[in-house]
């Protein structure tokens, strides 16, 4: 009875929030990013060697390392925070749906929308590069492998940035600090410190799936990396759901 009640509520919230995210004006930014990726990849395809290694490196650098955390931050940190600020969250927090379940609803819709948008951007970039060079089975496999990494990354980054949005009033600044200082700068340092980033574990999994480009530089156990990412997402999700339940929403 209770489970059925919450499943109906979860479905309503996921549907509503997904539509809200997709219809948001920020899709213009997403379209611009997709266009930028397409232009860069098209340019490199025409001016560079046009090999699959080059295509893989571009997707890794432009989309997996840059767009994935940035878009997760933009959408994740503002999702619940904006609803609290403009009070559109009223209907959710004054419904009998357990707030922790509602939080999972927000999380799922964020993951789905982010995954879809990132895979579309990746597909546009991939098409710009490989349709002007050569499309074969390996190129298609590359597309699918990166799509899987983007989906995995969306689930982990979303759990982190959604949590920041619930806990902090200005989550974007903290998120930018995390993305550019921790993930990008610290993550690129030599030695073990680079392993303390989400990006590292995604790329470890990627190095087992993709034998092309600079992603192959990452080595490690893919199973362990998957476990670490799953554990991180679960911990962030649990803390976020708890914080959302405890939060006063004036």
């Amino acid at each position, binding site marked *: 009875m209770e489970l059925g009640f919450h499943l109906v509520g979860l479905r309503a*919230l996921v549907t509503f929030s997904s539509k809200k995210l997709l219809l948001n004006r920020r899709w213009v930014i997403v379209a611009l990013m997709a266009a930028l990726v397409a232009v860069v990849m098209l340019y490199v395809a025409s001016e560079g060697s046009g090999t699959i290694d080059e295509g893989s490196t571009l997707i890794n650098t432009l989309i997996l390392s840059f767009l994935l955390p940035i878009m997760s931050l933009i959408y994740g940190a503002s999702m619940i925070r904006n609803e609290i600020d403009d009070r559109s969250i009223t209907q959710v927090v004054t*419904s009998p749906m*357990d707030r922790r379940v509602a939080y999972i609803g927000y999380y799922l819709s964020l993951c789905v929308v982010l995954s879809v948008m990132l895979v579309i951007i990746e597909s546009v970039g991939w098409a710009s590069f490989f349709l002007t060079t050569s499309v074969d089975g390996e190129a298609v496999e590359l597309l699918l492998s990166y799509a899987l990494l983007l989906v995995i990354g969306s689930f982990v980054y979303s759990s982190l940035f959604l949590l920041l949005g619930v806990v902090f009033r200005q989550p974007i600044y903290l998120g930018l600090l995390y993305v550019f200082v921790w993930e990008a700068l610290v993550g690129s340092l030599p030695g073990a410190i680079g392993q303390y980033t989400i990006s590292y574990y995604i790329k470890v999994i990627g190095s087992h799936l993709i034998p092309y480009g600079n992603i192959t530089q990452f080595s490690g156990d893919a199973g362990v990396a998957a476990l670490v990412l799953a554990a991180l997402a679960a911990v962030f999700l649990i803390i976020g759901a708890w914080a959302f339940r*405890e939060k006063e929403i004036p």
Partner: protein
Amino acid sequence: MSDPIVIAKDVSKWYGSVIGLNNFNIEVRSGITGIVGPNGAGKSTFFKLLVGTIKVNIGSMLVMGRSPWKNQSQLKDIGFCPDYEFLPMDLTGTDFLRFVGGLHGMSGQTLAKRSSEVLKLVGMTEASDRRMGGYSKGMKQRMKIAGSILHDPKLLLLDEPLSGTDPVVRKELIDMIKGLNREHGHDIIVSSHVLFEVERMTHDVALLYKGRAVASGDISEIRDLMSDHPHHIVIQGKGLVDLAKSLVDKPYTVSVQLWSDRSAITVEVSRPDELFDSMPELIAETGCQIESMRSLDDDLESLFKYLAGW
């Protein structure tokens, strides 16, 4: 007398250094209860405590016997219509109710049937397929109320439902709110900063001022308190010196001040009704000519200050 559905005992709530409610006490019983107070009196804070979106700092708050904080399941029995705009403007009225119904565990035919009933009840059937961004203020208020009664709650909380509406819409909303209690059995707590609006809906009223319930009970008792409230009345005209002399001797007069240009006097009275009643006699007695009389205390603020003893 029925058991109270809301009991607030010594409740204090503050936001940083700002006090929302201060040692607040109230008992609300079945029927319609009006909460009246000026802006910043603590009405919205009271409602937010009732739905458990915020928690009390000191004291206890019980709604239908249970504390509302972190008691989300209790919201099956409570419907809340806040005073602010929160409707998703991109959605149609029907889609909004579908979303709200889903959050309350409703789906399929049950939800469709109930949505249709509620839309009819609030008079929004025809406009339900339009985007809410194009709704008038009155239509938005109706949709907010529709969302709050969709799950057929026992207790309905309406925070300033008449605010910003024109007199025609206001009358329709008042009739609707009365009907929700009389015909559909919802217990209702409704707030306003206009006493006479609440008076048209109920006789059970609580007056809030600066976070405290300064008076509560039947409206007639409140009216009695109000009639004892000292009023400042400005009387303009000619021959006012004699009138001022006569007024000084009256038992209801607290003070009389003659303006420097002698065009008016300001009279402070403890019982304004007696002053108004005796005016024909005073005019005849002193031969003054009155051009106008007006009270300086028409605003609720001064009344609340008086009732709060400030």
